[in-house]
């Protein structure tokens, strides 16, 4: 009986999502986001999407967290709250309307796990039946990824490399660029020789960042 576990995992997922958006400390929010991705990976594994679970656990829970932590270290750790009540009251009806519309639309979707759903009757039957004869590959996801739908994969690979190059274009700078007002200690030569990279206190009125060794 997998359904109750499913439900519990989903509730944990919702709680972590709310907390990740609610906490003030951005590092804590990043940790909660990684936990959220890990629970999502568990859910993927629970509905037998093993490849997706592997990628989500490695990328969503691992590398995304690393990227967030690096970016937070390069910027600031404190979330700037700026509660904008007007915008919240303008957006909430929008979200409620979105939810209502989607709930209405979801009544037309097939039941969960229905073998007669239209999506199950499509091309994937052919893929499953022919995969081994065509490519000698038991893992159908791999043969789909690299053979039947390799044009798709080519496009995605291009998108990833382009995204990395775009990130490089945004951040790479000339040494004599006057518009670059950088005065953080990492940019001064020799400034980070013995930099201790542990973080400062989470709250300004804490213990002053110097606990016992």
């Amino acid at each position, binding site marked *: 009986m997998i359904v109750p576990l499913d439900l519990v995992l989903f509730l944990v997922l919702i709680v972590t999502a709310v907390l990740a958006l609610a906490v003030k400390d951005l590092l804590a929010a990043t940790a909660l986001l990684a936990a959220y991705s890990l629970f999502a990976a568990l859910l993927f594994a629970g509905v037998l999407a093993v490849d997706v679970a592997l990628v989500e656990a490695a990328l969503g829970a691992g590398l995304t967290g690393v990227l967030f932590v690096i970016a937070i270290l390069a910027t600031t750790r404190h979330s700037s709250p700026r509660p904008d009540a007007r915008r919240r009251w303008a957006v909430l009806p929008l979200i409620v309307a979105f939810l209502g519309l989607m709930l209405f639309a979801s009544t037309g979707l097939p039941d969960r796990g229905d073998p007669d759903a239209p999506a199950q009757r499509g091309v994937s039957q052919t893929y499953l039946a022919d995969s081994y004869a065509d490519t000698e590959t038991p893992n159908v996801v791999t043969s789909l990824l690299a053979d039947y739908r390799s044009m798709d994969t080519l496009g995605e690979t291009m998108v990833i490399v382009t995204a990395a190059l775009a990130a490089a274009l945004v951040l790479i700078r000339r040494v004599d660029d006057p518009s670059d007002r950088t005065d953080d200690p990492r940019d001064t030569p020799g400034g980070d020789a013995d930099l201790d990279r542990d*973080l400062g206190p989470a709250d300004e009125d804490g213990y002053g960042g110097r606990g016992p060794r």
Partner: protein
Amino acid sequence: MIIVANVLVGAGLFFLVVSAIALLIMPDVYTRAHAVAKSETLALLLLFGGLFFRPELTLDASGLLALVLIFSLIANPTAIHALLRAASRSGALPWTVIDQRLADEELRGGTS
């Protein structure tokens, strides 16, 4: 065979429950991490040891399981070490008996 596996897995689950309880009732980050690090590493060892004795396990799967066990045993204490080091550097003070006594006295003074 299956009895040994079940006993080991049960012991592992027991230690996992103990570590979860310790996470809830311990007073500060150091004692929590102390309790969780030890009992969880032991629970991992017992769980995987129990899984080795399962009859449906093939040879290459048990090899993979052994690799996972070895790397978990290395990485788990290291992660907790790094976590506690960061906690110490960012100023988390350890809980002491004096704190508890002061709190008790305050409580008593307040209620009487």
